[in-house]
């Protein structure tokens, strides 16, 4: 066991990373189900601006990320996604990134902070953030578990959900909030640009491997956990940025998942029919 990997200052990284990984896997399952690639991209990008602003004024990063995640959620919930990749929304997002770069440029550690906010900095996780993270994570998981069936139904067939008294619009808001929570927890650790990979990679893989939703969610949680653990370890050892490991792993899981899916649906020789009972024909 390399010294320092589990030492005092790394404990909060491990704990926060683990909580975040599990929640990302669970919420990511629904991101993939609902095809919400855009939201999963957009909210972290907006949150980056908040992190940059917090860095500029010396406030708590988590606070900045959380606030702007919430603002992003509100904006998307209010104005919706009019067509998946609307030009206006793309322009707004890029402008937010530009503002973020402005904030960082005005602060003292432009280059370093740009890097760590975009690509992650596990060592910067402080123990004081542990409690809010744990609470957010617990709350998020509880919501997902309690609302599992309404979430499923309104993701697959919103009209059916409405017929049963579930309001898809409300579910959408809750879902977006969940994405915001994951963003808040994950951004400081893996970076704004890689939150998406963490939310998409493991669940997309899980869906290739199994057709059963609960199992898929569990698998994506486990994969997320493995990803984060290995990434933290590798990053600690090599000093290489954690974002690299997260992005690479997400890709590797995805490719493996595709291969498994192809293997599962390979053309198989049809077994000969057996006549049931005596003289049925």
């Amino acid at each position, binding site marked *: 066991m390399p010294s320092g990997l589990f030492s005092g200052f790394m404990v909060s990284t491990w704990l926060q990373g683990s909580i975040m990984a599990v929640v990302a896997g669970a919420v990511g399952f629904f991101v*993939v189900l609902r*095809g919400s*690639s*855009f939201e*999963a*991209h957009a909210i972290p990008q907006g949150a980056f601006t908040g992190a940059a602003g917090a860095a500029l004024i010396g406030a708590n990063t988590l606070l900045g990320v959380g606030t702007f995640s919430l603002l992003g959620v509100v904006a998307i919930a209010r104005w919706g996604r009019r067509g*998946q*990749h609307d*030009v*206006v929304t*793309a*322009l*707004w997002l*890029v*402008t937010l*990134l*530009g*503002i973020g*770069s*402005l904030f960082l*440029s*005005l602060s*003292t550690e*432009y*280059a370093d902070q*740009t*890097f760590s906010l*975009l*690509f*992650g900095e596990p060592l910067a996780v402080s123990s004081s953030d542990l409690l809010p993270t744990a609470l957010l994570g617990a709350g998020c998981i509880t919501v997902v578990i309690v609302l599992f069936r309404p979430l499923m139904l309104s993701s697959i067939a919103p009209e059916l959900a409405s017929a049963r008294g579930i309001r898809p619009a409300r579910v959408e808001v809750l879902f977006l909030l969940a994405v915001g929570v994951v963003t808040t927890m994950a951004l400081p650790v893996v*970076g704004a*640009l*890689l939150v*998406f*990979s963490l939310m*998409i*990679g493991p669940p*997309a893989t899980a869906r290739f491997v199994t057709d059963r939703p609960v199992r898929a969610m569990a698998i994506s949680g486990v994969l997320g956990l493995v990803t984060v653990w290995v990434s933290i370890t590798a990053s600690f050892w090599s*000093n*290489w*940025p954690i*974002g*690299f*490991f*997260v*992005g*690479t792993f*997400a*890709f590797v899981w*995805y490719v493996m998942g595709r291969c498994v899916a192809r293997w599962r649906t390979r053309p198989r020789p049809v077994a000969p029919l057996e006549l049931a009972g005596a003289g049925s024909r």
Partner: protein
Amino acid sequence: MSVLHAIFQPGLFSNSSVQDAAVLGAVVALVCAPVGVFTVVRGQSFAGHAFADVTATGGSAAFLLGVSPLLGFVVMALAGASATELLGAERQRGRDLVTGVVLGAGLGLSALLLYLTTTTQSTTGAAVTVLFGSIFAVSTSTLPLVIGFGASALFLVGLVYRPLLLSSINPDLASAQGLGRRVVGLAYMVALALSVALSALTIGAILSTALLIGPAAAALRLAKSPGRAIAWAALIGVAATWAGIVLAYDSYNWPPAQQGWPVSFFVVSLVLAAYLLAQLTGRRARRA
């Protein structure tokens, strides 16, 4: 008179970095105008955005290898274009996921390359340059290359202009005329890759989408015919870029750090402002 002085600070026009930046910005805006219009019309903004993120990997690699970032951007963008053409079109939802995962890997790789650059070459600020651009830091010797790439992109678009337009309006109409779909699509992809690379050099890889689709989207609110749309896009793009350069130069005296605000921030914000303005004033151009 003092207002003009406040805007066009002394030394602005004689500063060689500013001059180079102005040329670079103008070339990029001109190239992005027709390519951007086609990209928005064909609804391929996401492809443009994907290319942009991918070019970050190329730029980072260029830094590590000590090569010009422009080459890194161009090579990576062209590789991305070929990959997209080869892999072909899949179902929308599956395609988004695949693209997202590949982008994530690419960005992760960029992170690694940038880190290695910092440690092996003690160059700081590579991340900022690649991701957010550094229009003032582009050397004069790169300009001929920029103009060369830009001219190539414009040539390609001009060559397949009519078939591209027809296939963007409706693919069935294009195939009825027996147009070589692959050739046209390939020419467009290459032009797109070059435009994205040039834009990444100017305002950074993750912001480059703005210069590609922003002026074009604004122009579509204002113009009814394709030629006029391209003209408007060029005008808006050049104006935003030049205004951004001027403001960035002026900002050297601004608080808090007296080191100037980033050009890309200005350009991107101005592009958004131009779009919103066009949105407001362009409603009457819709119907004859």
